[in-house]
């Protein structure tokens, strides 16, 4: 049983579940920052683990990115991460900290923790939404932040799971803060047991 076994309808349903989580995350972010925040999930797809860097790396696998990584712990293993283009993450920090867009040239410690918090909230909310749906309890590690080439970071993470998991769920998310729209990707790595459980629940729909 693998994520690959999801059909179009089930994939759509799963996208909807993540969408609900994204909505909750936006509300939380909005309350936290006192800004207008919304989030939508326009697209989801399943992708073989070794193809992820190529699928995400529109500008090349060595494009600079910022990533927030949460490892799923407890009864099961897996991971969830939110990935931003490096330049996009700078804009996001600027607007959230009330700076002029384009002002930040690099992510300082403050900027990193802003991105880390956004990633943590969005990943947490998506996972909570799936968890509510499957009845599984997911615990996750504190968020880790990294900034480097897309492929270099992803292959470190994907390698950890490459021997036991063959596919991942890639969800495109659009985060809108005030007038700024930032595209990002939420990437889920689930074990086959979890996928089986999610699939079983999705058969019901």
């Amino acid at each position, binding site marked *: 049983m693998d994520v690959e076994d999801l059909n179009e309808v089930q994939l759509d349903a799963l996208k909807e579940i993540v969408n609900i989580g994204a909505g909750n995350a936006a509300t939380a972010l909005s309350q936290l920052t006192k800004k207008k925040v919304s989030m939508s999930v326009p697209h989801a797809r399943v992708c073989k683990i070794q193809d992820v860097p190529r699928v995400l790396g529109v500008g090349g696998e060595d494009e600079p990115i910022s990533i927030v990584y949460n490892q799923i712990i407890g009864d099961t293993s897996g991971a969830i991460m939110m990935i931003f283009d490096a330049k996009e993450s700078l804009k996001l920090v600027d607007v959230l900290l009330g700076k002029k867009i384009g002002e930040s040239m690099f992510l300082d410690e403050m900027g990193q923790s802003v991105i880390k918090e956004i990633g943590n909230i969005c990943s947490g909310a998506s996972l909570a939404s799936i968890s509510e749906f499957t009845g599984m309890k997911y615990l996750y590690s504190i968020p880790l932040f990294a900034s*480097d*080439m897309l492929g270099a970071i992803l292959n470190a993470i994907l390698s950890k799971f490459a021997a036991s998991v063959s596919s991942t769920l890639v969800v495109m998310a659009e985060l809108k803060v005030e007038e700024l729209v930032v595209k990002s990707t939420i990437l889920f790595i689930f074990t086959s047991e979890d996928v089986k459980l999610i699939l079983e629940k999705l058969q019901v729909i």
Partner: protein
Amino acid sequence: MSYFKGEKIIVPMAGLAVAEAPQILSTLALGSCMGIILYDRYAKIGGLAHCMLPNSKTATHEYTPGKYVDTAIEELIAKLEKKGVKSKSLSAVLVGGADMFPHISHKLGLNIGEGNLEAARRELGKRHIKIEKEDTGGSIGRTVEFDLQTGKLMIRDSKGQIKFL
């Protein structure tokens, strides 16, 4: 952008390829992954693999030789031998094996780079293949190009720094 003249063969993650001069072997964004180049400087024929994990014995899924250090080296040698290259005339170049989440990677089992590097050294040692050039470890992403004509290696890291070995 190319730093060497010649057709560039880009090897994806978990992939491997064999080429000959004037072709250029390249792979993008090595993090904890191990880039392994084996080549014969006189025949100007070589191969590159972009491996994710040290050992194929851990695999429970489909078999992809380029994904693991041990099977990638075996497969590269087999492919090179088919081209008439003898394994004793091969030298090796190693790039990658970084730790992308330093300090915390051990706790979360993300310290795969270390294991990849050890496996590569062990597997090459077993076959008496000398490691001629190496840029490994640290916590930085690397893109590489290897010119089979001259045996020159270009490494560009995620900070944009370029070096030639």
